[in-house]
C-alpha cells in the first residue's frame, strides 16, 4: 500500500515537473525569440518551470480535448508563427507603406482562427474545467493590465523600454499562474 502511494506520488511529481517544464519552455522560448538571446531564456524557463512543478504537491489536471480541436489549434499556431516571421521579414524589406500595412496584418488571419479554436476548446470542457479556465483567464487578464500600467509608469521614471511583443508572453505567464491558483482552489 505504502509502495503504491510512493509510486503515485513519484508519478504525480514527474508529471507536474513535465507540465511545469513545458510551460517554462513556451515562456522561455518566447523571451529568447524576442531578445535574440543565445538560448538562456529557454534553459532558465525550463528549469524554473520544472522547479515550480516539483514543489506543486497536488495533481495538475490535464484537460482533455478532442483530437480535431488539438489539430485545429496546432495548425493555427503553426500558421500564426509562420506568418509572424514572414511578416517581420517583409517589414524589414522596406516595402511601400500599403504593402507594409498588409504585411503587418498577415498574422491576424491565423490569429483570429487561433482565438476561435481556443474558444472551441474551452467550450468542450466540463463545467468545472470551464470555470477554472474562466477564473484563470480573468486573473491573467487583470494582472496583465496592472503589470502593463505599472510598467508604463516605470518607463516614465526611466527604466528601459522593451518590445510590446512581451505583452502576450506576460499574459500567458500570468494566465498560467492564475490557472495554478484556481486548480489548487478546486483540487
Amino acid at each position, binding site marked *: 500500500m505504502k509502495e503504491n502511494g510512493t509510486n503515485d506520488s513519484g508519478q504525480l511529481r514527474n508529471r507536474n515537473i513535465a507540465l511545469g517544464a513545458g510551460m517554462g519552455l513556451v515562456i522561455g522560448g518566447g523571451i529568447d525569440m524576442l531578445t535574440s538571446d543565445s538560448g538562456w531564456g529557454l534553459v532558465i524557463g525550463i528549469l524554473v518551470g520544472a522547479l515550480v512543478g516539483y514543489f506543486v504537491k497536488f495533481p495538475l*489536471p490535464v484537460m482533455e480535448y478532442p483530437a480535431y480541436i488539438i489539430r485545429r489549434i496546432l495548425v493555427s499556431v503553426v500558421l500564426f508563427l509562420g506568418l509572424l516571421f514572414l511578416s517581420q521579414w517583409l517589414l524589414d524589406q522596406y516595402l511601400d507603406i500599403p504593402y507594409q500595412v498588409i504585411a503587418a496584418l498577415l498574422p491576424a488571419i491565423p490569429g483570429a482562427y487561433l482565438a476561435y479554436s481556443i474558444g472551441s476548446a474551452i467550450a468542450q470542457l466540463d*463545467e468545472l474545467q470551464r470555470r477554472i479556465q474562466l477564473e484563470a483567464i480573468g486573473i491573467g487578464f487583470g494582472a496583465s493590465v496592472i503589470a502593463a500600467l505599472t510598467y508604463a509608469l516605470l518607463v516614465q521614471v526611466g527604466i528601459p523600454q522593451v518590445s510590446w511583443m512581451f505583452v502576450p508572453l506576460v499574459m500567458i505567464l500570468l494566465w498560467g499562474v492564475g490557472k495554478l491558483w484556481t486548480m489548487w482552489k*478546486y483540487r
Partner: protein
Amino acid sequence: MKNQLKVLRAQHNWSQAQLASQAGVSRQTINAIETGKYDPSLPLAFKLAKIFNSSIEAVFEPDDFDLD
C-alpha cells in the same frame, strides 16, 4: 451545498473515474463536488441523481439559510 455523492459512490463500489465517465465530466469535477469545493449546475446535479436512481434531494442538500 452538502451532498451524499461519496457515500452513494461507495455503496455502488465505483471509483471517482467510473462515476465521472458515466456523468460525462472529469474525475477532478467529481472530486471537487464530493469535497464540497464546487457546487454542480442543476443539469449535472439531476444527472448525478439519476445515475444513482435517487431524487436530487436525496443526493444534494442545501446549507442552512434564511429566506428573510
